[in-house]
C-alpha cells in the first residue's frame, strides 16, 4: 500500500543523510513547461500502456490501466491543465502516485529528472496566477537559471478543486 509512506518514513529516519528524499522532486514536462512533484508521493514510473475507457468520467480521467493486476485510474495532466490533447508517444510516461491510499497514474509528456530543490530555493506561487493551471501550483522551485513549477498533487486529483476552477473560469470569462 504505502511505498510512498515508507519513503516518507525514510525521509524522517535518514534526515541527515545525503541520499534522503527530502527536497527531492520528480521533474516532468507538459507542453514544454517543467513541472515538479514531491518524490515522496511517487511509487513508480511506467511507460504508456493500454487504457480502458470508463464512462461518466471527466475528460481528464482517461480510464483505467492494469498495473500488475491492480486496476488504477489514470489522469491526463495535459487535459487537466486545459492543453489540447496530444497523441501518446514512446516518451509518454505514467507517474504512479499514492496519496492517502488513492493510487492514481498521471500521464505526462516526458519525465526528465529527479532534482534536489532546497526549501530556501522555493518561492510561493505568484499571486496573479489563476485559471486552470495556477490553482495546482504549490510553489516555484529555482534550479540555477531554470524555474520548475512545483505542483500540489492532492489538488491535481481533487474533484472539488476542479469545480471551483471552472466556476472561477466562467466568472472571469
Amino acid at each position, binding site marked *: 500500500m504505502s511505498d510512498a509512506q515508507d519513503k516518507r518514513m525514510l525521509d524522517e529516519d535518514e534526515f541527515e543523510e545525503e541520499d534522503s528524499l527530502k527536497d527531492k522532486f520528480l521533474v516532468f514536462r507538459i507542453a514544454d513547461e517543467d513541472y515538479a512533484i514531491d518524490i515522496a508521493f511517487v511509487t513508480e514510473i511506467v511507460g504508456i500502456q*493500454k487504457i*480502458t*475507457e*470508463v*464512462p*461518466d*468520467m471527466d475528460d481528464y*480521467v482517461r480510464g*483505467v*490501466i*492494469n498495473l*500488475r*493486476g491492480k*486496476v*488504477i*485510474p489514470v489522469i491526463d495532466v495535459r487535459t487537466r491543465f486545459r492543453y489540447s490533447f496530444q497523441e501518446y508517444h514512446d516518451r509518454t510516461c505514467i507517474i504512479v502516485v499514492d496519496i492517502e491510499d*488513492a*493510487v*492514481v497514474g498521471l500521464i505526462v509528456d516526458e519525465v526528465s529528472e529527479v532534482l534536489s530543490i532546497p526549501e530556501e530555493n522555493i518561492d510561493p506561487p505568484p499571486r496573479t496566477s489563476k485559471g486552470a493551471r495556477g490553482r495546482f501550483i504549490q510553489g516555484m522551485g529555482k534550479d540555477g537559471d531554470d524555474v520548475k513549477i512545483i505542483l500540489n498533487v492532492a489538488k491535481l*486529483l481533487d474533484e472539488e478543486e476542479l469545480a471551483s476552477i471552472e466556476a472561477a473560469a466562467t466568472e472571469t470569462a
Partner: protein
Amino acid sequence: MSAEYSGNFQEAYFDEVRELLGELEAALLAIEDDPDNPELIGQIFRALHTIKGSSGMFGHSDVAMFTHDIENVYENVRQGRLEISKGLIDLTLAASDQVKLMTGLVEGESAEEAKTRAIMTAAREILADLPDPSSEELAGEAPRKKIDRRLVTQQITFTPEPDIFKYGTKIIPLLNELRRYGECVVVAREGDVPPLEELDPERCRLSWEITLASSKSRDAIDDVFLFVMDDSELRVEQIAEEDIFALGVKPAQIRDLILSGDRLTKDSIAELLAEEAAERAYVPEERSRTSEAADASSVSSVRVKSEKLDELVNLVGELVVVQARLSRISNNREETELFRVAEEVERLTWELRDSALNMRMLPIGAAFNKFRRVARDLARDMGKKASFTVEGGETELDKTVMERLNDPLVHIIRNAIDHGVEPPDERLAKGKPEQGRVHLSASQTEGNVVITVADDGKGLDPEKIKRKAIALGMLDENAEPTEQELFSFVFKAGFSTAERVTDVSGRGVGMDVVNRNIEALQGRIQLHSKPDQGTTVVLRMPLTLAIMEGMLVRSNRTIYALPMLSIHESFRPRPEDVTMTMDKLEMVKVRERLFPVVRLHEIYGHDPDNYDLDKGILIIVESREKSVCLFVDEILGQQQIVVKPLPTYMGGIEGLSGCMVLADGDIGLILDVENLIRRSEKGAGEGGIE
C-alpha cells in the same frame, strides 16, 4: 511493539467474546424449547465460564465479575438444583446484551452501570432462593450427578451352557433387559473360545461380565435369567453400595479392569473410587480444561482476519489472470515442455482458487441464529405469538454476501412479524392457530443460494396496494396491473402500507432499501402472498461475489461482462422485427413479445461498429422490473470472472458493478443490468425533453 501485541490480543479477546455470546444466545434460544437438555445447559455454562475466564485474563474484571454471578446460577442448573425457566432465559439474554455493551461490541453505546447491577442482583437473588447445598450433600465433595441413594452396583457373571443355542435361547435380549435396569457395562470374555479349526459355531463358548448399577434386587436379576438357569452359571455379587458410575467411574475403566483378567470385587472398586476422588480433589481445574481442549480439537480451526482472506482471494484472482496469459502463450508456441508446465500451473491455479474461495464460505446457520433472537424479542414486544423455525442452516454462503445480507434479512423478518403475523386474538377469530409461524430457510441451487422467509400472517392485500399506489400517484387510476406488478410497489421508495408507524417498520424506508441492498449483491428478490395465508419473500443470491459467471461482449473498443444470471437469450434480429414507436423508442419482437432496445454504445457515449440492429447482436437481459434487448457489437464468450471493484477515486458509475482483468491483461467493465436499465430509461426521458 508491546502495545501492538496487546492490541492484537485485545482484538482476539473481542472476537472470542463475540463468538461466545453468539453460541450462548443460540443455546439459550434452543433451550427454550428443550429445557431439560443437559447438552444445552452444558453449552451455556461453558460459554459463560469461558467469557469469565478470558475477561479476567485480559483485564476486563468488571465483565468477569458480572459473568461470574450468571455462571453460578447455571452451575446450579447443571447440578439439577435449579430448573430452566423463561425468566432465567430472559435474564441471561439481558446479561448477554449487557456483556456486549460492557465490552464495547455495540458501536456508540456503552453499558449502564445501573443495569449491570440490576442483572447481578437478580442473579444473586436466584442463588439466594436456592436450598442450602450443604444440607443436601456431604460437605466438601460436589458430585457431578444427583446421587440416588437407592442404587447399588452389582457384578453379574453369566456363563451359559455350551448348548444354549440349541434351545433357541438368544443372549442379546437378556443383556438388553439388564440394560433397561440401569447403567450397565457388558464385557464378553472369550477365554474359552477354541482355535478356529476346532470351533463349533453352534456351541456357545463365551461368557459375560456385567457391571450393573440399579435399584434391582438380586431376585429381579435372577428373573431375567429364569429360563436359562438350568445348566448355565450365574453369579451375582454386590460390589458397591452406591452407583459407581455416578461417582465418576468410567465404563472404560471397568472394561479395562475386567479384560485385564481381574474379577471385580468390592476391594478393586473401592480402589477405583479412591483414585477417582483423589483426582477430583487435587486437579478439578485441570479436568475441566482437558475436556475443553478435547472439545476444541474436534473442530480444529485457525482464526484468521477476514481482510487476510480477502487479500488471499484477491491474489488468487490475479494469479488466475496471469495463468490465463501463460496458457495463451504456451498454446501459441509448440513447445511440449512449456505446454506441460502451463497445464500443471492451470490445474494448480484452479484448485487454489477453489480452496481459497471455499475458505470464505460459511454455513448460514450462525447468522440464522441471530435472527431467532430478533424474531423472539420482537414478537414479545409486540404481544404476538410466533414460532420461528429455521431450515438449511448448513447451506454455505460467501462471508461478504452473508454479512451484507444481515440487515435486509432482519428487516424482512421484522416485517413478517410486525405486518404479517396477527395478534393472537385476531388469529383465533380467523380460525388460525394462536401462534403464528415464521419460517426461514436456505438452500443451494446451481451457483445460487435461495433464502426464503415465509410467514402465515395476513398477507398482502393487492387492492390496498393498488389504492395506495394510485393515491401516491405511482399508478394510473385506470391501470390494471398484475398481482406481481402490484407487489413490486412494495419495493419502491416512499411506499409503505403500514397503517401505523411502529418502531420497527412502516416508515416508508424499508423494502426499497432491502431491494437495493439485494441488487447490489447481484441478487434478486421476489414476493409471493395470499391474503390471510401469509407472505413469502424469496431471495436468490450468488454464492460468492468474488467470482462470477459472465458473458463477455464488446461494444466499440470496450469489453463488458454481463452476469449470466441476468441473460435470457441472444440473437441477431431480422430487420422486419424491429419497430420504432412514435417517441423514437426502438422495439424488437421476439416470439410475439415486444422488448425495448437499449443500445449499450449510446448509454456510454461511443460509436458502435454499425448502427443497424441487424448487424450487431441483441441480448435479452432481465432485471426484476423488466426485460430489455441490449444491443452490442459482438459476443466474445462465456467466462468466469474475477470481480474487482472500480477504483474508489472514480466513484460509483451507474450501470457498472466493477471491473475485471481479461486474459490478455486488458481491463473489462462489469455491467449491472438493473441499474443499466434504470439509466437507459432516464436517458430516454431526457432525450424526450430535448
